[in-house]
């Protein structure tokens, strides 16, 4: 019998009632009395010198309150970067300023040059159209390799280069890796592109700045995955507002996928303008603005070499990656191609020698930062593609080649600085063969061929580092933040609970799964537990939600706080039952004395805490509220094996995903239904990256894929029913729940499986000259590859 509540139950997502009935409270639903509206004037050229901004005509237009330009932000801090990478030579990365409104130059299409605040949105937009920009256009640089080679066209003149950093990891491995490759029996080389993506959460970004003169208090309502982080970054580094005078609220947020982690100029602007004008100021992004101002994802160009010995054992991996930073460093951009990518290059394999080189490059494009998976999909894609290519070159079964090289003993210290605590890669490999029905593939292939289609089977094994992250470790790696999480458990007098968490739910289902954990621990119904999140005024300082960290880190903080509650409540119960604390047991919401029929209900204990008439006041304080901060001792390492079957239409190159199966090891699972939903969503995004999505700039820096007419999002008919399994469970050894995180796995594990399947299909049709197709494998690209 599956459980119907607590850990392991598929409790229905309580938040969906409001999401699905139009009663959510999103940032755009928030309207503050007296609010004005801002329309931003954005650059329509990719690179240029601002020689004049004429606001006179616009200022005279109806409803206009004030027009801001870069000069209004002199003396105001720029947007800070939260991570400092040190390069191969011991130098810190180049970190040019990132102004709120452009200063002197514009560096990408969509950069904000001026801002018009007016009584109504229509008036703000009309006046924004009337702001005359005089921009002396400069040559733009979009291609990363050209950018690195160029000394004439510089995105930031003052740093004298377009290279942000040249990172080697682990630099000490470099010579050994070179030697191993030189002496290897076989080396497989692959050059590939990890395509630039636009996250496209359903809800575009919104910011409402408010200012209360009476208390000198600023409030920012914003679409954020981490309101405390925004408060710290914006308050301390941009606007100079101390935290106690700044509140950041991120209410219901309609999807984040990473792009709502970062601190954006629009948020700082609305907070700043509200103080300047003593009026609330609101901005709601249009979808067009989202395409040219939300941080993009991925955009790596990589060469990977895999060296094998005579027995097909992996002996070395060497990579060289160009990683696009865009025009400015977004909040966590430098960490994505380095610590979230280089550390994963061992994959599931015991390759003894690994060296990763990453050149981060400034270009005249929108900043690039974390997007679902962030660095780990890029690592997995190149590794799993080159292994597949090697298997073909060597004429061996691709799964057998993987299995032969699997890590099987844990803990396992990789040559790229992380230690996997636990895992069982053969178990998920066995499971995928079963659920994907490898045995029936040849029959299905024949059926496809009878219809004139080519059919391919692609597999992929992945590992990811989640549960981000041990603060002391990431501090050594350049993080300018701690990555613990916080929770306050407030027990109310009659026994219900409010759990204030620093995690932030923007679709993940925390309001359902977190109560399951607490319910399991105390034995009270889930509906007696409420999750409070998203407001710096009523949650402890926490770091928010990304990197599949909320349950592993945030959930662990809730466990620690709940343990403190139980310890204190046990003392109260012992007093009430006139028994020794050591004899008290908590079960099914009641405290009892072991070996007796004496017991006291949870609600009576909590009431005693707030009505302490009969209470051990000499030993403990009244009340029942505890806070815990949890800092993980290691990353968690979810892993799994995915399989994709595609059909390719040989006449048109059209690829359709016919079957997709995912066997994941997420450690312990709190809510299987939510976990499966996370995998479904991740796989849909991964199929989107593999077959559909592509953010394209032309060589002048104009964004060609600037709307849904040209940027293809995955739709229901692009994604088959996904068969998921999470029965292979090797619990995480270092957090109290034994959980690993599941939010990004689908997006990490699926792209290589899709492309491996496409290549397999083409080979089955005799197109053996095709060794790789870059994502997205559009019909045109597949057809062109078949032509040779």
């Amino acid at each position, binding site marked *: 019998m599956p459980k119907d509540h607590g850990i392991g139950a598929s409790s229905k997502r309580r938040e969906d009632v409001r999401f699905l009935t139009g009663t959510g409270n999103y940032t755009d639903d928030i309207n503050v009395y007296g609010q004005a509206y801002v329309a931003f004037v954005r650059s329509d050229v990719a690179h240029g010198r601002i020689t004049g901004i004429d606001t006179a005509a616009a200022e005279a237009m109806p409803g206009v309150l004030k027009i801001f330009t870069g000069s209004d932000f002199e003396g105001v801090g720029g947007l800070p970067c939260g991570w400092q990478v040190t390069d191969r030579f011991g130098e810190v990365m180049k970190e040019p300023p990132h102004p709120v409104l452009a200063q002197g130059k514009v560096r990408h299409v969509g950069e904000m040059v001026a801002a018009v605040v007016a009584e109504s949105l*229509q008036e703000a*937009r*009309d006046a924004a*159209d009337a702001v005359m920009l005089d921009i002396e256009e400069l040559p733009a640089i979009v291609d990363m390799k050209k950018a690195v080679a160029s000394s004439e066209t510089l995105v930031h003149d003052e740093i004298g280069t377009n290279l942000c950093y040249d990172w080697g990891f682990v630099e000490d491995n470099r010579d050994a890796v070179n030697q191993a490759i030189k002496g290897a029996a076989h080396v497989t080389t692959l050059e590939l592109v990890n395509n630039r993506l636009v996250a496209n959460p359903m809800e575009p970004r919104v910011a409402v700045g408010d200012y209360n003169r009476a208390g000198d208090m600023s409030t920012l309502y914003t679409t954020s995955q981490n309101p405390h982080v925004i408060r710290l970054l914006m308050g301390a580094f941009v606007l100079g507002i101390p935290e106690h005078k700044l509140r950041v609220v991120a209410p219901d947020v309609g999807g984040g996928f990473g792009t709502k982690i970062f601190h954006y100029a629009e948020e700082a602007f609305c907070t700043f303008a509200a103080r300047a004008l003593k009026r609330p100021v609101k901005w709601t992004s249009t979808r*067009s603005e989202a395409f040219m101002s939300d941080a993009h994802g991925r955009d790596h160009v990589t060469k990977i070499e895999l060296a094998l010995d005579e027995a097909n054992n992996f002996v070395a991996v060497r990579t060289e990656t160009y990683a696009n930073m865009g025009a400015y460093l977004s909040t966590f951009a430098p960490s994505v191609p380095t610590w979230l990518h280089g550390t994963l290059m061992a994959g599931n394999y015991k390759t003894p020698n690994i060296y990763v080189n990453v050149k981060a490059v400034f270009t005249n494009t929108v900043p690039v930062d974390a997007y679902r998976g962030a660095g780990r999909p890029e690592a997995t894609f190149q590794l799993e593609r080159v292994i597949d290519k090697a298997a073909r070159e060597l004429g061996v079964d691709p799964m057998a080649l993987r299995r032969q090289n699997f890590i099987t003993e844990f803990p396992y210290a990789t040559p790229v600085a992380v230690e996997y605590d636990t895992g069982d890669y053969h178990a998920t490999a066995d499971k995928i063969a079963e659920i994907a029905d490898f045995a029936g593939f040849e029959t299905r292939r024949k059926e496809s061929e009878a219809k004139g289609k080519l059919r391919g089977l692609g597999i992929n094994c992945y590992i990811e580092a989640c549960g981000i992250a041990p603060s002391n470790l990431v501090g050594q790696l350049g993080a300018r933040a701690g990555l613990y999480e916080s929770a306050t458990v407030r027990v109310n007098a009659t026994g219900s609970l409010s759990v204030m968490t620093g995690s932030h739910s923007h679709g993940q289902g925390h309001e359902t799964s977190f109560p399951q954990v607490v319910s399991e621990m105390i034995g009270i119904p889930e509906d007696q537990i409420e999750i409070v999140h998203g407001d710096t005024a009523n949650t402890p300082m926490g770091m928010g939600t990304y990197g599949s960290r909320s349950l592993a880190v945030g959930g662990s903080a809730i466990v620690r706080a709940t343990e403190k509650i139980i310890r204190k409540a046990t003392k109260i119960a012992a007093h009430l039952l006139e028994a020794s604390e050591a004899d008290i047991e908590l079960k099914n919401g009641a405290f009892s004395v072991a070996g007796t029929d004496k017991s006291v209900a949870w609600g009576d204990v909590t009431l005693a805490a707030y009505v302490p008439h009969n209470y051990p006041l000499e030993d403990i304080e009244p009340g029942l509220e505890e806070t815990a901060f949890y800092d993980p001792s290691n990353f968690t390492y979810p892993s799994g094996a995915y399989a994709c079957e595609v059909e390719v239409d040989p*006449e*048109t190159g*059209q690829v359709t995903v016919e079957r997709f199966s995912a066997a994941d090891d997420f450690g312990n699972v709190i809510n299987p239904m939510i976990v499966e939903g996370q995998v479904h969503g991740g796989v849909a995004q991964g199929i989107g990256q593999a*077959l*559909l999505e*592509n953010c*394209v700039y032309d060589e002048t820096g104009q964004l*060609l*894929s600037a709307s*849904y*007419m*040209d*940027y*293809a*999002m995955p739709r229901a008919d692009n994604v088959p029913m996904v068969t998921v399994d999470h029965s292979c469970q090797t619990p995480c050894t270092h957090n109290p729940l034994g959980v690993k995180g599941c939010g990004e796995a689908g997006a990490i594990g699926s792209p290589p499986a899709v492309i491996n399947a496409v290549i397999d299909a083409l080979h089955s049709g005799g197109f053996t000259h095709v060794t790789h197709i870059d994502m*997205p494998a*559009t*019909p*045109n690209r597949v*057809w*062109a590859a078949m032509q040779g």
Partner: protein
Amino acid sequence: MYAFEIERPKSVDEALAALGAEEAQPISGGQTLIPTLKQRLAMPSKLVSLSGIDELRYLRREGDALMIGGGATHGMVAREAATDFPGLAKLAGKIGDPAVRNRGTIGGSIANNDPSACYPSAAMACGATIVTNSREIAADEYFQGMFMTALEEGEIVTGVRFPIPQASAYMKFEQIASRFPLVGVFVARFADRVGVGVTGASNNGVLRWREAEEALAANFSPDALADVTAPRASDMIADLHGTAEYRAHLIPVMTKRAVAAAE
């Protein structure tokens, strides 16, 4: 969007009178125009909506032809042409999504003549007649290149008369993002001729593939196209979704499939 006035006439005469105003622009469903307005890419001072004109919302059989009022939505065509002209009904049933099909009209599509619109391929293949408030225009003369038509200022499409073929089919190869046709081919077989209309592909807008029409008139089978000269890549659209060569390649592929599917 900029502010504009809107009029909702109830008859063609009222519509024509309203369109006499300076900068007045007709809107017939608005599935292209409204997104354009939202992006502030057009600034008409007055829109004259044709959607409320009941006399334009009909499909009716006229002998061997199907007459479709300019205000008929794609959804109406999909439903009401299903018996008389299934090839056209299926074309209409795959335009956009239900919301688009319930707003967009055949008159609006034909008047806009987007190079990736579906209907023009059927109009060309069938030798349809475009009926306006003042005259009748043969499809071959009506479509004059991307977004270009024979319509005069203030002239509106009141209907389209399609000769009903014995068999027909439309095959659309979708652009992956917009799902407009990257290449769409409508094949119509009549007693004495075959029509092949191609949309989405050419720099010159919708076209007839006359070599294929001749070959198929002699032998209405996919094999008949084996040695037929295909439209040249040099005339095809090239963009981020498809090279000119790819579009040129798709024309015979989609034509063969349309022939095989014709009913």
